[in-house]
């Protein structure tokens, strides 16, 4: 199977080079040439206005999936506490289901977790599939996968989304392989293609330097994991929903892992994804003493302290406070970036903030491209002054 160019017909317009997702076509001497990176995907074939690109690829047949209906969300919980991302996903699921004219369901697995079903209904689940039992007390890959296998084959959902948490990223690929579905990881946007009615999954690649939109045409359910903090929580219009309890025949000997212990780590864990105001520092903050200034500002604003990867690697902030591609995604009302240059990996984690203020010495720092207010100056002058004035402002208002 191959794709080739009828050189006589090619006018070198480069439409194909722009279309190629693999960068496999180049135009030399006014003619398109297909290089080694070609995967015979055929994306270029239809783009050519002169039918100069030919292919002997048989179009892959898209099977009939009309019996697959419903948008499903994995309701992740640990020790009876629902993870926030599950609720965020229900918000997105409502939107997708509306466009497809389908229903939203949540899958809740655990032991003594019935109470959580109501929360799921409040935030958009019309049906909650509840699977309970002592075998499900802790999350374990194989027990949960078994549940999904049974539910998916019985109910045939169209879409199945999970949070891109440490649990979601363990479970989703296992389930996808088990049920025979394609899976897209760590999406930052989901939408329905208006023509084909399929799920378009957008995610960052190459460390956030590139965004890719991915479709899952050849299998169902269409599966994706979604980064926490990206989707908005939307309370459901109606709070009526059905809980469907399911039994399970799974026995302990079928599960090959045992949780010996959970050790909570004593870092004062702040959930930045919920913070309204975040003060973040980067390389320019220099040291822990510098972060002390930022902390004072954060306290004056009743906000939280965060930082870049550099700040984490230098030990100025804990891992849980690292914002960005390899850290967490935040969308506060106000994000104040101090001494943050604004590498694309960092911007990927904070650009959805409602307002962004940036303080940096370098007027060309990329952070200013995503800032509403920019201050070119020394943060060691500006930050203490800002803290002082905010304290005064607060006192005035309190009077």
């Amino acid at each position, binding site marked *: 199977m191959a794709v080739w160019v009828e050189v006589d017909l090619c006018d070198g317009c480069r439409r194909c080079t722009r279309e190629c997702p693999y960068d496999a076509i180049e135009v030399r001497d006014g003619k398109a040439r297909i290089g080694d990176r070609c*995967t*015979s995907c055929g994306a270029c074939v239809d783009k050519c206005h002169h039918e100069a690109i030919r292919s002997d690829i048989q179009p892959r047949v898209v099977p009939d999936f009309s019996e697959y209906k419903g948008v499903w969300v994995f309701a992740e919980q640990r020790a009876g506490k629902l993870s926030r991302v599950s609720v965020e996903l229900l918000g997105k699921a409502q939107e997708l289901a509306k466009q497809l004219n389908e229903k939203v369901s949540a899958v809740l697995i655990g032991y003594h977790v019935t109470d959580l079903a109501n929360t799921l209904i409040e935030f958009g689940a019309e049906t909650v599939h509840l699977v309970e039992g002592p075998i499900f007390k802790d999350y374990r890959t194989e027990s949960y996968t078994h549940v999904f296998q049974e539910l998916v084959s019985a109910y045939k959902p169209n879409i199945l989304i999970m949070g891109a948490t440490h649990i979601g990223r363990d479970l989703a690929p296992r389930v996808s392989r088990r049920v025979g579905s*394609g899976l897209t990881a760590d999406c930052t946007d989901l939408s329905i293609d208006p023509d084909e009615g399929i799920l378009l999954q957008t995610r960052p690649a190459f460390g956030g330097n590139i965004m890719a939109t991915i479709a899952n045409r050849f299998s169902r359910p269409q599966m994706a994991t979604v980064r926490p903090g990206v989707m908005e929580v939307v309370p459901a219009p109606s709070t009526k929903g059905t809980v469907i309890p399911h039994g399970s025949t799974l026995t302990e000997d079928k599960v*090959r892992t045992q*949780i010996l212990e959970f050790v909570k780590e004593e870092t004062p864990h702040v959930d930045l994804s919920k913070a309204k*105001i975040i003060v973040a520092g980067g390389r320019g903050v220099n040291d822990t003493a510098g972060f002390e200034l930022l902390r004072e500002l954060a306290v004056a604003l009743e906000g939280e302290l965060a930082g870049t990867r550099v700040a984490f690697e230098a030990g100025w902030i804990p891992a849980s406070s690292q914002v960005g591609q390899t850290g967490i995604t935040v969308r506060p009302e106000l994000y104040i970036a101090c001494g943050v240059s604004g590498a694309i990996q960092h911007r990927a984690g904070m650009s959805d903030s409602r*307002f962004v203020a940036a303080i940096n010495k370098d007027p060309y720092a990329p952070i200013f491209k995503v800032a509403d207010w920019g201050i070119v100056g020394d943060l060691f002058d500006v930050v203490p002054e800002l803290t002082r004035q905010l304290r005064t402002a607060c006192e005035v208002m309190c009077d």
Partner: protein
Amino acid sequence: MNIIVLVKQVPNNTEVKLDPKTGNLIREGVDTIVNPDDLQALETAFTLKETHGATITVLSMGPVQAIDALSEAIGMGADKAILLSDRAFAGADTWATSFTLGKAIQRVEKFDLILTGRQAIDGDTAQVGPQIAEYLDLPQVTYVFDIEKLDTGYVQVKRRLEDGYERIQCSLPAVLTIIGGRSKPRYPEISKLLSACTKRAPIEVWNAADIGVTTAEVGMNGSLTQVIKTFAPKFERQSEFLEGSAASVARDLVERFKRNKLI
């Protein structure tokens, strides 16, 4: 004890950009490295080799240039390496990749443990490890940062969670995906690097026929997901620059916070 380590050669991700005019990936001058989490997996394997004795086979799928990743692994101390390379493998999503690697693993003689990095920095999917575990019907533990104990038939590991870690016992054979732990990956020895370049080096290259797959099952054709388009992320805003002394810019900023009801 036989350990298989799965590695991937990836572009040094900070350097990959889209051409603003054509929207194509700019790969020129981008050097390739062994994926950082996979280096951690290799280091974990070498530590086990030192403490328990093991034969380490490294497996990778990629273009012929990915041979460098395997040579590097041999330089670090791996015993054998296999590169899966065939044009038919190109354009694979994680479904097709896990199938291809899974098929190859079935051709490698018996093994007790499969180690790989949690995720690769070019795709960041973290999917291939668990999908291989499922394909081979093996138990899996992901986000492993420490192996506490390795005994006949089972392994005890620590798995990282957002707010702590779990201690897990898992039966063998198993798939573990590794994240950065206590020890830094070692550097290769020059003499071993040089022997990896010789004909006698224990490196094999397998194609689609060698692992008994058809071109329809692998690569782009065997994939369930497709990239529809790629684009440069855009999140630019119109920045208003505040100027003046520290006191005056601070005043201006506080005023804007108030105006937008942020405080």
